[in-house]
């Protein structure tokens, strides 16, 4: 059975198919979560929550072939919610699992990404980390393709500006 057929069955309420669908995409989902959450415990909780939200909403998924993107979107939304909640608590640095952010460039990039708006972060994740096509992002986010393209362009420009400003500071 191919991915789309499995997704179709899951949409119709087939529980086995739903579990299969989650298994097919669990690796992508875990990697997405790691990009945001850093430690294994939080990542697993995020996967549990994504499963929970997806099962409740699976009937609203219209295009079975977009199931992966749809799941990733739920995951990103959850991760962004968590990060916002965490901001209110003071976080100690050593809580962060060093397996993800162990060199300076990566840390810098993560800083730059976290300075973006949640919506721009989402686009970057879908496009650059999950290789999702613009057309599919547009369909899932319900915005025109042209808007996705121009927002990605704007976001890259912001990243460049961030690094340029940062570079100046570093050289002082």
């Amino acid at each position, binding site marked *: 059975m191919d991915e789309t057929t499995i997704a179709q069955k899951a949409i119709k309420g087939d*529980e086995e198919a*739903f*579990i299969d669908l*989650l*298994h097919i995409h*669990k*690796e992508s989902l*875990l*990697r997405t979560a*790691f*990009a945001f959450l850093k430690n*294994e415990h939080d*990542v*697993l909780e995020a*996967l*549990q*929550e*994504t*499963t*929970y*939200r*997806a*099962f*409740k*909403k699976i*009937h*609203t998924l219209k295009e079975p072939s977009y199931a992966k993107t749809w799941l990733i979107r739920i995951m990103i*939304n959850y991760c*962004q*919610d968590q990060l*916002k*909640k965490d*901001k*209110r608590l003071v976080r100690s640095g050593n809580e962060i699992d060093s*397996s*993800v952010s162990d060199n300076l*460039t*990566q840390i810098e*990039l993560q800083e730059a990404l976290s300075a973006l708006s*949640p*919506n721009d972060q989402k686009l*970057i994740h879908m*496009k*650059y*980390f999950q290789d999702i*096509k*613009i057309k599919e992002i547009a369909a899932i986010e*319900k*915005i025109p393709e*042209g808007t996705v*393209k*121009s927002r*990605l*362009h*704007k*976001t*890259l420009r912001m*990243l*460049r500006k961030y*690094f340029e400003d940062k570079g100046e500071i570093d050289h002082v």
Partner: protein
Amino acid sequence: MYEKEEQKLYDFKNHLKQVPLPMTQADNAIMQGLERAKREKMQTRAKRKQTLWSMAAVALLILTLVTTIRVSPTFASAVASIPGMDKFVELIQNDKGLTAIFKNDYYQPIGETQTIGHTTLTIDGVILDESGMNIFYTIESPIEINNISIENLVLLNQHELDSTSVSYSSPLPEEESPKIYTDIIKYTFEEPKNFEDLSFTLELKTTLNDNQFDFSVPFIIPENTKPSITYEMEKEVEVDGQKIFIEQVTIHPLRVGVKISFDPTNTKKILQFEDMRLEDENGEIWSSATNGISSSNLTEDGEVIYYLQSNYFEKPKQLYLRIDKIQAVDQEDSYFIVDTDQHILLHSPKDGRLALTDSNRSGFKMTLKMDLAEELPYGIDRQITDANGELIDTRYSGISDVYEGKKFMDIGIEDNGYINPLKVDLFAYPNYLKGTVKIEIPTK
């Protein structure tokens, strides 16, 4: 172009790939999430009966309230006289269709609120028709709103409602009262809808001064929609030798949809209608529903639906559909061809206004000559295919304002090992048909 920034992103992606994943625990997490969702579903089923009853009670209350307001003589006179409506005046005054809706009592006050902490979301009222729903809402914060953004928005009837577009303003708090924010959500349904059950829920996820608020407000709409009117036009018009078919005009209270298709044997490709509008016998105009650019959806049969402001409540003696600025280019000019290995523009519209300034396998930069008076509020690229006809994914596309007589474009593409040259279909281009469209639309 943004190779450096993109390289950083790709490096990070590869880095993420090396993180060891807890695959076994992941299976447990999936099963736990599923069990929790299933448990909750069982509980909701048991509760549903009770909820229905309390909703019916609320519906009765709202109905009474509406009837009371109705008899008030101030209510019908003008938009601003509706309690709490003054703050929306600015948002609707440029849309004649919306203004008419208020004059004709088609706006339905709701007044449902939800308070999280000390922050309150109020659904002031809605306008519902078969094509969509406009939701007027207010957010009140105990502290000054420095920034607010909408992260996610879902409208549910019995299920989530599919939409082709959801629009809301780029949120900015009011200057005079920075603790209050008002806006209109414009939700366009994917297909015209008739509702039997008029209870809805708006789920609105907002970030306000960096705090997240997940509002979920159920509300019941007192009155059902007025029926939309559809005219099967099946009219053919010829402009500058090009055949355009006006197939159908549907008049909803919130918007007018005009369904159009084109003769496949046209010698020119029609790209955009810049000023499609409805005009009555006195020259009064109902223009496009969005500022500047008409919303449109390309359906599978090559039909396009354009949305205009609505004349639903007006009864002009005569009504015309008019278009003066029709963007079009010769079929062979409806694309340009770039070779990103040899850095040359192999083909472009014969007016010679496009030039390639820079290129490599991950993107290219171009300029487009513009006259002083010309405007072009669009990006020009639609889709890109390689020499084998494979679709190449665009990564980003930006177009500048006019600067020293030129617009500057910057397009990033996926280098999946594609074969040059690349063909880029035009989405828009500043070249127009000679001639205009004016056709009469039947009126009731």
